């Protein structure tokens, strides 16, 4: 039911971890919901130099987190904020019906991390 790309991303996720001296951190979800995605970023001159994630959740939650970190890495924060569901879906070769909206969670976490960075550097 999952595309090859999803399985590949899930089995070998990129950028797992936490950046200790992060410039921005975003976390969404709770144990009640069952999904928690934490994204931390290191930013230099408004460019995301490093990004890491930690996720508690299903195959989709983990693979979208990984894909989002890959897509955002090296991007200018404004560009990264423009990333949309479609970009994540494309990177993963689509998601099964009913789960196609789940890619939004990881993006939300990324946005929170960037906002956190922007807040701190006003």
């Amino acid at each position, binding site marked *: 039911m999952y595309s090859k790309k999803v399985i590949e991303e*899930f089995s070998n996720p990129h950028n797992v971890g936490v950046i200790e001296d992060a410039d921005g951190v975003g976390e969404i979800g709770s144990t009640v919901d069952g*999904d928690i995605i934490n994204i931390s970023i290191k930013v230099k001159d408004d460019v995301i130099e490093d990004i890491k994630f930690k996720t508690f959740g299903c195959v*989709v939650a983990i693979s979208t987190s990984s894909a989002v970190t890959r897509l955002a890495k090296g991007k200018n924060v404004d560009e990264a904020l423009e990333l949309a569901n479609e970009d994540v879906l494309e990177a993963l070769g689509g998601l099964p019906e009913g789960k196609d909206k789940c890619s939004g969670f990881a993006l939300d976490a990324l946005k929170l991390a960037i906002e956190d960075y922007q807040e701190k550097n006003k």
Partner: protein
Amino acid sequence: MDHSATTPVDPLVVDAMLPYFSEMFGNSSSLHSFGMEAAEALARAREQVAEAIGASPEEIIFTSGGTESDNLAIRGVIPHDAGKKHIITSVIEHPAVLNTCAFLESMGHDITYVPVDADGIIDLQELKGSIRDDTVLISVMHANNEVGTIQPIEEIAKIAKENDIYFHTDAVQTVGKVPVNVDDLGVDMLSISSHKIHGPKGAGALYVRKGTVIEPIVFGGNHERGLRSGTENIPGIVGLGKAMSLASELLGTDAKHMQEMRDSLISRVFDALPDVRLNGHPTQRLPNNVNLSFKYVEGESMLMMLDMKGIAVSTGSACSSKSMNASHVLTSLKLEDDYIHGSLRISLGKENTMEDVDYVVESLKEIVLKLREMSPLSNS
């Protein structure tokens, strides 16, 4: 490792079935010799099933499986013209029972769903307290398919009998794993499914105690004493008969073997990993059922990684996303949030070995550690 979902057909069962596809393809209702062969095969299978559960052959109605047997038992004892009736069941039944009850509810009947305790055992006081004058049926499963808890069927049967109420049990998961004798259990009706006991899919039976007043839900040429019309699935029924014979013959050795693997698997996982919980009753459980919850990780992720290692399991957990919920069974056990998302059901089969158990324990350890490393909840 997912034998509660289904099982491979035993080669002896296949051998028994094969002639009934080709040489002996008759319709048991025909009067010629081809029909006779089919009728004889049907009679033999009926004896085999009856003998395995301590019933008489006339008390066995062949169906298409556990789902249909549950439907027939529950809908069949509600008289079609008797006005509103009341049925008591439990919150952890299989959907074949729950959805049949929901349908009857939509037809205007009343259903009481009795809760279970943290181990999955039905609350007998609540069950007693919910009995009414118009209660016609109590339906409680023998063992739960997800968490493996075995219910005190004999006690429920006593309560039903004292109150003159029919009692049905879904024994789909217990046949071949624990002794199933209709008189010892004291049930009026009992559902059986062939594909869970190394028989073919699409075959099953409902035991109906002599004297039980029941109406058909399928109408036609009055096969199966008029309770289940339709030309019989002879190969399937022959397979079910053989599978039932084998299951009762081998029950002692098979159950012991599965229970040894079960207990070893559970204790070794607990030794290997912290923050694990066993779901279901510690001792009143199916000999082949292991249902564990792992903190900090999610069920589907574990399932997928095990699948990549060639291990098939199932999970009652579902990632939130608000589009999916944890199973009604886990929810009924009131697991803490920390544990409800990370459940796995490993259901063993007689053909599994201790080497398989070794491999599962090793793989689980590796996978859970890997996922915990990815989890923001665990500080490992």
